[in-house]
């Protein structure tokens, strides 16, 4: 039995009448044979619905599977507790978990894919239901299983954990762009062990948390994150990151008027 059908009774109870018709349980719109596995492993077999309100934007075809830009916007759902980003056919599907806390449920980042695959974002609402959106990307093979592009030539001793970023004001919202230098090795290439950023925390200048992310190796090398924020107290953001070797990195991101 497909997992959605299995959860149908529970879903109906959970969702009551608040769910719009188009989000009712249905077959995987991307027709992936891996969906059942993703539902179990990435979403922990929790209630899930396909929902067009979780918008995933990406190029349908890429030449470089090591850097597929993905934008996710779940703001049409209202309050979102967590968003996960994953690719069905990746040897390591999960790229990140994002708890927006005080940020908007919107982000952009680039990730690796190993072949043509659905890339999905699932957003968990306050009732614990995952709302799943996604798009297919067509890519040549080997994005995860190729050496990180600048691995050999980069002086990581000086670059590792270095941060770059800027905050833009767009009317009532702020846009944050933040890059953290890290090879994000998947461990799938030769003898290079898995080595990647694991945690990213954003807080305001008073130390109050703004967002928390768990990161995994399928993110592109030197990941560049874009976030959005409505209200911001203070004149800077504080960024803290950790990697799988226990290195800790930090940065102060000024918010210019």
């Amino acid at each position, binding site marked *: 039995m497909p997992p959605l059908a299995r959860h149908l009774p529970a879903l109906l109870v959970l969702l009551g009448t608040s769910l719009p018709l188009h989000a009712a349980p249905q077959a995987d719109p991307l027709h992936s044979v891996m969906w059942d596995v993703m539902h179990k492993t990435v979403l922990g077999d929790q209630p899930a619905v396909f929902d067009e309100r979780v918008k995933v934007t990406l190029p349908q075809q890429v030449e470089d599977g090591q850097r597929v830009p993905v934008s996710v916007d779940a703001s049409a759902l209202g309050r979102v507790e967590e968003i996960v980003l994953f690719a069905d056919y990746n040897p390591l599907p999960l790229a990140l978990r994002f708890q927006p806390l005080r940020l908007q449920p919107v982000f952009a980042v680039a990730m690796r894919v190993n072949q043509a695959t659905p890339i999905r974002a699932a957003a968990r609402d306050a009732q614990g239901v995952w709302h799943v959106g996604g798009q297919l990307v067509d890519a040549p093979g080997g994005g995860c299983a190729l050496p990180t592009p600048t691995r050999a030539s980069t002086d990581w001793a000086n670059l590792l954990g270095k941060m*770059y*970023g*800027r905050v833009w004001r767009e009317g009532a919202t702020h846009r944050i762009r933040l890059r953290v230098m890290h090879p994000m090795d998947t461990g799938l290439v030769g003898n290079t062990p898995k080595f990647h950023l694991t945690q990213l925390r954003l807080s305001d200048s008073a130390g109050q948390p703004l967002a928390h992310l768990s990161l995994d190796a399928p993110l592109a090398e030197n990941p560049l994150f874009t976030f959005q924020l409505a209200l911001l107290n203070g004149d800077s953001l*504080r960024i803290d990151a950790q990697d799988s070797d226990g290195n800790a990195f*930090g940065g*102060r991101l000024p918010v210019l008027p």
Partner: protein
Amino acid sequence: MIRHRLRLLAALLAGLGAVAGARAAEYPITPQAVAPDSWAVIADTGYFTPQNGGFLVNTAFIATAEGVVVIGSGPSRAFGQQYRRVIERTAGKPVRELVITHKHPDHFLGNQAFSDVPIRADEKTTAMLRNEAEGLAENLYRLVGDRMQGTEPLLPNAPLTPGVREIGGHTLEFIAVPGHTQSDIAVFDHTSGVLYAIDQVFNGRTPTLPNASLPDWLAALDRLEALPFKTLVPGHGAVTHDAAPIRATRRYLQWLDATLKDAARHGLTPTEAMALPIPAEFAGWAEARAEWRRSVGFLYARYELAELPALAAPDQPTD
């Protein structure tokens, strides 16, 4: 490993062909006379598909008194073989040498049909092909499929030095004009006045930028426009007798550069940049939106980096 995969693919495709009893269709190779003893073959202006068999790029040949100089061998072994028959029938002379202008796969994967003559490329292109040819070929297999059957990259085996050579009554100048890739050669025939600009100039087809350096490319266009040519053979699109395609290619590259700079300055994400409007002048070119998206993919990261200052360390450690 890639070579192994190629063989596997080729074997698989051959098997399919045998089962279906299919015979690969002929490519529509119709030489167009551009000057005395000089022809260009004008290709489809779309993207690589099984239907066009990867035949997307213009090629050309010059029938000198000492044999035919061929510029570009096309996208596949089947193309190269058919092309060579067409050349020798049209020119009434044997091929003396093949010139590979740059490393893109649709310009050199027909090399197998020219294995008995010198295949010339400049040092840098040859060196890059040594590393990249298999991967480039594999990507074309993926996009084109069936008609790539039997194609394996054959590397250039003779030097191509920038400068003038007298060949059978034609004064041919080989000009280094990098920019479209890390190394590109244009051929100017002083005798006929034909400039074979190949992929430095696109006419009515959106330029492709997977290996582009915009400052180099713009400098190359200036250099080409200054030449006293009468006829221009672009890499993609129709032959002209003026510099209009050079200027249009320049305007496209300048627009692209300014637009990506502006997008990065405003903090746009790559997918937002990919959705930006394309001006009317370029929007009607073949593959305008698809190539714009590809170009954002190839180039935008550099522009994004330039707009993100390094962060200072946090004021005090917490944990």
